[in-house]
C-alpha cells in the first residue's frame, strides 16, 4: 500500500503521511473515517464516537484523529516529548473482532514497523477514566521498549457494562512519528515530508502554540471565568438531560449528544483549573465525581436514543 506513495507522503517521512497511512489502513478495514470532534478533549476516548458509541448493542467501527489537550502537560515548548496539545489516532471496533491484535500489528507494518526486526510487545496496562466512569483491560504496546499505542477492551463506559465489548486502539501519533522518523525531539518532526525550504516541521506548526498555551494554562487562564464555566456547563448538561426525555417513562431521549457536549466542556474546564493549581486535593475528587455523574447520566440518555439501540 505504502510503496506506491511518493516519498514525501510516506509514513516514515512525514507526520501527515503517517496519519494518512493509518486512515487508509483502517478505512480498508471497514471503519468510518471521522474528523476530529470540534471540542476540547483530554483524549480521543471523549469523542462521542467512542464514549457513546461504545454503549448499546449496535455494531460500530470508526477511526479518527483527535487533537487532545492536557493543560498540565505543557512545558513551554522546552521538553522534547511533552505537549499540552497533541494528536491521538483512535480506532474503535464494536464488537471487538477476534483478530484485533493481528489487525493492530498489520497497521504497524503499514506504517513501516517490521515485526521481523522490531520487538513488539503487549505489556499489561489497565485503563481507567474516573471522569468518564469507564474502565477496560488491555496493554501498552511497546516497540523496542517504547510505548507506541494503548490497546483496550472496554468493560464499562459511563458506568454501564459494555455488551458487546468494544476494542479501542489509541496511537500516540507524535511518539510513533518520532519513532519511525528516528527523531528525538518532537518539534523536529517533519510534518509535510518535504526537504529544504519546503520542509515544515512540527515545531513550525506547534512550538509557538505550546509556549503560549503553557503560559495560559499555568499562569493566566481566567480562573474566575473557568469556575463559572464549569458550573454553567454542569447546569446546562443537567438541563438538557432533563429536557431531552420524550416521555414520562423515560424510554426515549432526544438530546443526549448536546448534553454530552456540556459534560466534555466541564471536563476540560476542570483540567484547566487543575493546571492552574486552584483545586485542592479534596476538592479535586469531588470535581471528578461531578463530571462522572454527568457522564453517567449522558450514557443513560444515549441508551435511550436510536444510536444507543432504542428503536
Amino acid at each position, binding site marked *: 500500500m505504502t510503496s506506491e506513495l511518493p516519498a514525501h507522503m510516506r509514513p516514515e517521512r512525514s507526520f501527515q503521511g503517517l496519519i494518512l497511512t493509518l486512515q487508509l489502513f483502517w478505512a480498508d478495514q471497514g471503519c468510518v473515517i471521522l474528523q476530529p470532534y470540534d471540542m476540547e478533549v483530554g483524549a480521543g476516548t471523549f469523542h462521542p464516537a467512542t464514549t457513546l458509541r461504545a454503549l448499546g448493542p449496535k455494531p460500530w467501527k470508526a477511526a479518527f484523529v483527535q487533537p487532545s489537550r492536557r493543560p498540565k502537560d505543557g512545558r513551554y515548548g522546552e521538553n*522534547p516529548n511533552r505537549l499540552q496539545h497533541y494528536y491521538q489516532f483512535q480506532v474503535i471496533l464494536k464488537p*471487538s473482532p477476534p483478530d484485533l491484535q493481528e489487525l493492530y500489528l498489520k497497521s504497524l507494518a503499514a506504517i513501516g514497523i517490521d515485526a521481523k526486526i522490531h520487538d513488539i510487545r503487549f505489556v*499489561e496496562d489497565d485503563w481507567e477514566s474516573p471522569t468518564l466512569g469507564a474502565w477496560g483491560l488491555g496493554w501498552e504496546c511497546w516497540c523496542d*521498549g517504547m510505548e507506541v499505542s494503548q490497546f483496550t477492551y472496554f468493560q464499562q463506559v459511563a458506568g454501564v457494562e459494555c455488551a458487546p465489548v468494544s476494542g479501542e486502539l489509541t496511537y500516540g501519533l507524535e511518539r510513533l512519528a518520532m519513532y519511525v522518523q528516528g527523531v528525538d525531539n518532537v518539534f523536529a518532526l517533519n510534518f509535510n515530508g518535504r526537504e529544504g525550504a519546503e520542509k515544515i516541521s512540527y515545531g513550525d506548526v506547534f512550538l509557538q502554540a505550546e509556549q503560549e498555551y503553557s503560559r495560559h494554562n499555568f499562569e493566566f487562564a481566567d480562573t474566575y471565568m473557568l469556575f463559572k464555566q464549569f458550573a454553567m456547563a454542569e447546569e446546562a448538561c443537567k438541563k438538557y438531560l432533563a429536557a431531552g426525555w420524550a416521555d414520562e417513562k423515560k424510554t426515549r431521549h432526544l438530546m443526549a449528544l448536546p448534553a454530552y457536549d456540556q459534560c466534555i466542556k466541564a471536563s476540560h474546564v476542570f483540567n484547566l483549573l487543575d493546571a492552574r493549581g486552584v483545586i485542592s486535593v479534596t476538592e479535586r475528587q469531588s470535581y471528578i465525581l461531578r463530571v462522572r455523574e454527568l457522564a453517567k447520566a449522558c450514557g443513560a440518555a444515549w441508551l435511550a436514543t436510536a444510536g444507543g439501540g432504542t428503536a
Partner: protein
Amino acid sequence: MPDLLLEFFSEEIPARMQARAAEDLRKLVTDKLVAAGLTYDGAKAFATPRRLALAVQGIPVRQPDVKEERKGPRVGAPENAIAGFLKAAGLKSIGEAKVQPDKKGDFYVALIEKPGRAAIEVIAEIVPEVIKTFPWPKSMRWGARKMKNVPTINAQGQSIPVVNEKGKTIPVVSDDWLSWVRPLHSIIAIFGPETEEPDIVKFEIEGIKSSDTTFGHRFMAPAQIKVRRFEDYVSKLEKAKVVLDAARRAEMIHADAKNLAFAQGFELVTDDGLLAEVAGLVEWPVVLMGEFDKAFLEIPGEVIRATIRTNQKCFVLRDPQTAKLVNKFIMVANIEASDGGKAIVAGCERVIRARLSDAKFFYETDLKTKLEDRLPKFEHIVFHEKLGTQKERIERIVRLAKELAPIVKADPKKAERAALLCKTDLLTEVVGEFPELQGLMGKYYAEAQGEDEAVAHACEDHYKPKGPDDLVPADPISVAVALADKIDILVGFWAIDEKPTGSKDPYALRRAALGVIRLIIANELRLSLAMAISVPFTAIRYEDERERRISNSMLMMAMRQRGADVETVRRFYRESGEFVHPSDFEEHVWAEFVSIANDLLSFFADRLKVQLREQGARHDLVDAVFALEGQDDLLMIVRRVEALGKFLDTDDGKNLLAGYKRATNIIRIEEKKDKKEYTGAPDPKLYNQAEEKELARTIDTAKAEASKSVAAEDFAAAMSAMAKLRPHVDAFFEKVTVNVDDKALRENRLKLLNEIRSATRAVADFSKIEG
C-alpha cells in the same frame, strides 16, 4: 495409565499474574479430579505470556465403581410402593432385591452398582467448570455475547425466528458470557496413555472447541501446531520458538545476561523481581546489550537503575572493581531479529536516552532548590483528612524528635534539623517520578547542600527498619527521627480511630510498631512510650502552642505517676510553680489520652509478643510483665521477660509457680464459697505455727528485696529474691492446714496466702503465666 494435557492459549497475560495462575490451574483441576475419584501420579503447570498449560500424569481410565445399598419398602407392602422402588433402584423384578430384617420387620434392599464413568467424560465436565470459575485477579469479556437461536433475516428483511419441530418459536438465549484474563483463543485438551494416540477431551466454551492444536511464537512461528502428549508439546513448542517453563526462561535470561556482561568485563546487577517479570513478558528470550552516554553517569546510580528498570524493564551493569554503574544496559527481546537485533538495540537506546535525559533534568532541577525551601508547599498537601496537612505532621515529627534526642543521645539541634528535612524529598521531581527512591534522594540532596552527614543519613534511614529483616539504624540522629516518624503515625491513626483490623492495615501500622520495638531493643533505649505518645497526642488535640506545651508536660507528668488522677497532677503542677489554667487540661482529653495510650501500649505488647515468639520466647511471659502497672519501657519489659523466663526454668521458679497456683486456687475456691474477698493484711498476732510466721517474714523480705532489685533494674536479683519464698511456701503447704474450724484463724491464713499473690507481683503477674 493415561496423561492429561491442557493448554489455554490467549492474548497476552500480565506477567505478574502468570505464576499464580499456573498454580491455581494445577490445584483446581487436580482437586476436582481427586473429588471425582480420579487420583493421579503427578501434575505440573506452566505459563508463558500467551498460554497456561497443565500436564497431569497417571490418571486412571475410569472412575472406580461405586456400590450402594438402597432400602426399599417392607415385605408385603402395597404393589405400587414396590413398583416405585423397582423403578427407582433400576431393578427388573423384586426377586433381584435382597430381604433384610429390621426392628420393624423385613425390608427389601436393592444393591445398586454404579459403574465408574470413563475419565475422559468426567474431565470434559471438569475443565469447562475450571475455565468458568478461574480466579483471575482481574478478568474481562470480549467481542459479542454469544447468542443461541438468533433469528435470521430473509431477503425481504423479515426476521425469521428459530422454531422447534412443532413450529413453536424457540426463544433467544445467551450463554453465560465467559470471562478470562484477556481474550481466549484456543484450548488443548488431550487425554491418553503414553503409547497410544491420545483422544481429545471434547467440550466447547464461548465458541471455542477443545482440540489438540495450538500456535507457536507470535512473530517467529505463528503457524498451527498439532501435539500428541506433554513431551511432544514441549519439544514442538521449542521448535516453534516458545520456551514453556518460566523458570527456564528466567535461567536463560540470567545466564545470557551474565555472560554478555562478563564478556565485556562488567557485572550484571542482579534483580530477581525484574528477572521474573521479564521472563513473563517473552516466550523466546533474546538478551541484547545497549549503551547510553557516559555523561548520564553523573546522576546517582539508583536513579539510573530506577529509570532503566521501571520504565524500560532493562537490567543495569556495573564495574566489578569499583561496583559503580557503567553506561551499559541489558534488554531482553522476544524475537531473534533478522538484523541480529540492531534495530531493537538502537530503538531501546533511544528510549533510554530520552528517559535518562528526563531523569537528569529532574535531578538537576531538584538540586537547584534547597530542601528547606520546599517546606511551605507542605501546607497545601493533606496528609490525612482527619489529621491535617503534611506540614503539621512534619511539625509533630520535629517536636517529638527533639524530645527524644536526649534519650537516644542525639544532638537535639541536629535531630530537629533532620526531622525538618526528612520528608522534603517527597516534593522533588525524582521522587515524584520514582516513589521507591524516597529517602535515598533526600540523603543525596541533603549531602549536596552541605548538611551534616548524620542529618543527611537520617533523611534516608528514618524510614528504617522497613520490615522484620531490614537493618535497624544505629546513628542517634536517625534513631530519633525514625522513632518520631513511626510513633507519630501510630498516635495519629489511633487518635482518629483508624487502627488495623484483621488483615486490613492500609497505613502499615503494624510495621511501624514493630519498627519502634526493634529500634528500642537494638539500640538499648530507655524510653517511656507513654511520654513519647503524649507528644504527638497533644499536638493533635491542641492547636494553641502554649496550651500544647503545658498540656504536654502535664500528660508526661501524669504518665510518670500512673494511677494518679487529674487533680493530683494539677496540684503537683501548681506546686511546682507553673501557672495552670483549669481549661488547659481538660478531663475528657485526659481520659482520651489514657485510653489511647493504653490501647496503643497493648498494641505494642502484641507486636512484641509476635516478635519474641518468632525468637522462641514465651508470649505468656510478655503478658505477665505487661499486666503490671506502668509498663511502658520496652527495654525493661524485655529484660524482665528474659529474667522471668530463666527463673521459671529453674526448680525454684517452677516450684514457686506451682505454690503460687496452689495458693490462688485455694483462695479462689474459698472466696467463691464465702462470697467475700480475702485481700487485707493478715494479723501477725493470729499466727500460731512456725511455718506461718516464717512465710510471713520471708514474704516481707522477698517483697522488699525484689522491689529494690526491680528499682535497680536488676531483674535476675529480683527473681532470686522471689526464689527465697519457695521453701517457705512449700513448708506452709506441708504443715499448715488452711481450712480450719476457727474462722478467724482460717481467714488470717487465707489472707496470708493472698500475700504470696501480691508479693509475686513485684516481678510479674504470675496469673498470666501458663503451665
